[in-house]
């Protein structure tokens, strides 16, 4: 370790030497980031799909949307901080509870809007064909609501990926860890690389979901 690299004399915005020698470290952060995202989205879907279906046709609609809507206005930084004494520092639970909550709001609104948009005559036709309520829901209403749900999923994904960087404040962060390191050590490279990767990850996920939507909904392709 006798070689001194005096990187501080010239600290380029991206030091490719640092990047190439830290690939595993960067990849670990990306992995953590992806895992947190997948958990937040999966749990968000699992909660919002049944909840949205139940709320859409009942009086629960306003209170449910209202509750998650109120939750949504609370800054994520505060939620992460406040959960620490209950669910621990640097734990997945502390990070995920707010993330899942925000996703549920986005998704549930889109589930409800999507189901609302199913034309009345389609429902009538399905009833007339003998579909029972559950079958009608699964085979007629949900597929027609899918474009709206996909749109919500895309927004939720991009939003989640950005919010995860903030969990660096509670000891996690995924790519946010590198941003934090860059800040505290006055070091450009981890900061810039992490920001760029976060953007790339979000755009990639958005494109992939758009592709998934095209695949899943051949009849809904426009443009």
């Amino acid at each position, binding site marked *: *370790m006798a070689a*001194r*690299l005096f990187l501080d004399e010239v600290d380029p915005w991206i030091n490719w030497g640092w990047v190439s020698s830290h690939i595993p470290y960067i990849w670990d952060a990306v992995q953590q980031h*992806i895992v947190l995202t997948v958990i937040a989205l999966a749990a968000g879907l699992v909660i919002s799909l049944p909840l949205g279906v139940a709320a859409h046709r009942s009086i629960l609609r306003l209170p449910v949307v209202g509750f998650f809507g109120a939750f949504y206005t609370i800054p994520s930084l505060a939620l992460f901080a406040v959960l620490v004494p209950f669910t621990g*520092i640097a734990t997945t639970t502390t990070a995920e509870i707010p993330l899942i909550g925000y996703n549920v709001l986005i998704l549930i609104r889109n589930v409800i809007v999507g189901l609302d948009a199913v034309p009345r005559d389609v429902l009538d036709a399905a009833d007339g064909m003998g579909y029972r309520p559950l079958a009608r829901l699964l085979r007629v209403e949900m597929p027609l609501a899918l474009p709206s749900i996909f749109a919500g999923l895309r927004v939720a994904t991009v939003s989640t990926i950005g919010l995860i960087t903030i969990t660096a404040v509670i000891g996690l962060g995924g790519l946010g860890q590198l941003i*934090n390191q860059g800040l*505290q*050590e006055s070091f450009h490279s981890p900061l810039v690389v992490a920001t760029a990767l976060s953007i790339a990850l979000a755009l990639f996920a958005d494109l992939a979901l758009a592709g998934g939507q095209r*695949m899943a909904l051949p009849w809904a*392709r426009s443009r």
Partner: protein
Amino acid sequence: MIRKTRTFSLLTVAALVAFVAVACGSSPTPSGGSSSKGTITVAGFDFAESSILAQMYGQALEHNGYTVNYKLRLGKREVVAPAIKSGQIDLYPGYAATDLEYYNSGAGEASGDVAATAQKLNARLNPLGLEALTPSGAVDQNAFAVTKATQQKYNLTKLSDLASIGDQLVLGGPPECASRPFCQPGLEKTYGIHFKSFKSLDTDGALTRAALANNTIQVGLVFSSDSDLNKLGLVVLQDDKHLENADNVVPIIRQKAATADVKAILDKVDSNLTTAQLITLNGQVELNHQDPDAVARAFLQQHNYFS
């Protein structure tokens, strides 16, 4: 149109496969097996030196057959202490005097005598199921720095010099400085310095240095083992009334994890550490942007720890 669809489809499938692979592949490998002596979770505070120390402890333990989980940059003592009390972590590199005054809620028991301080610290820790091991000779305590310009303007050498001009100056440091005994309250009580105001920044990081540089604050909290103060033209004022006490590096560990073997390993690391070396190690991270784990490894190798 069809080509575009096919591209999108491939992209989606590729993405799905990638995401699933990553999600599955990153599940933690099962720890231990017959060869591991046990798992220890080592944490560090949110500054570089703590990461280096935590890495030194962790790597020494790993070399001796333990499985180590690292939770570095976990946060401040206000967050790390509850974590060790609850068992979420097993070990962190503490500082004798500051830890004592934390666990005794600022009772003022710490002194310049490191042995006495460590003893009182254990008296506070043991009822919590915790223990402080043998303190190192290496010391890192709070220090207060000014820019050369400020030093010359008010002709400052020691902290007592600030007493008469405190109301013209802004103090900067981490948010908890406003309430910690070795920080702002201590400066008021011991030195009679009443600052014009306090600006909440970070723990001896980039924000504090930037604030000193552009005169947003005139006095900033730094650490006595910082390596970049000279380079940045910052001058530490002498602690002539000994507000800061024996802040020797000391492992704080859960008694359940503190077997004789573990204690011996950690003691060996600490006994080899001096303040001068700590400053050098900090320099490698703070100035040269080397990684704490690499710096720690080099230190252990240098002291033939791995032989």
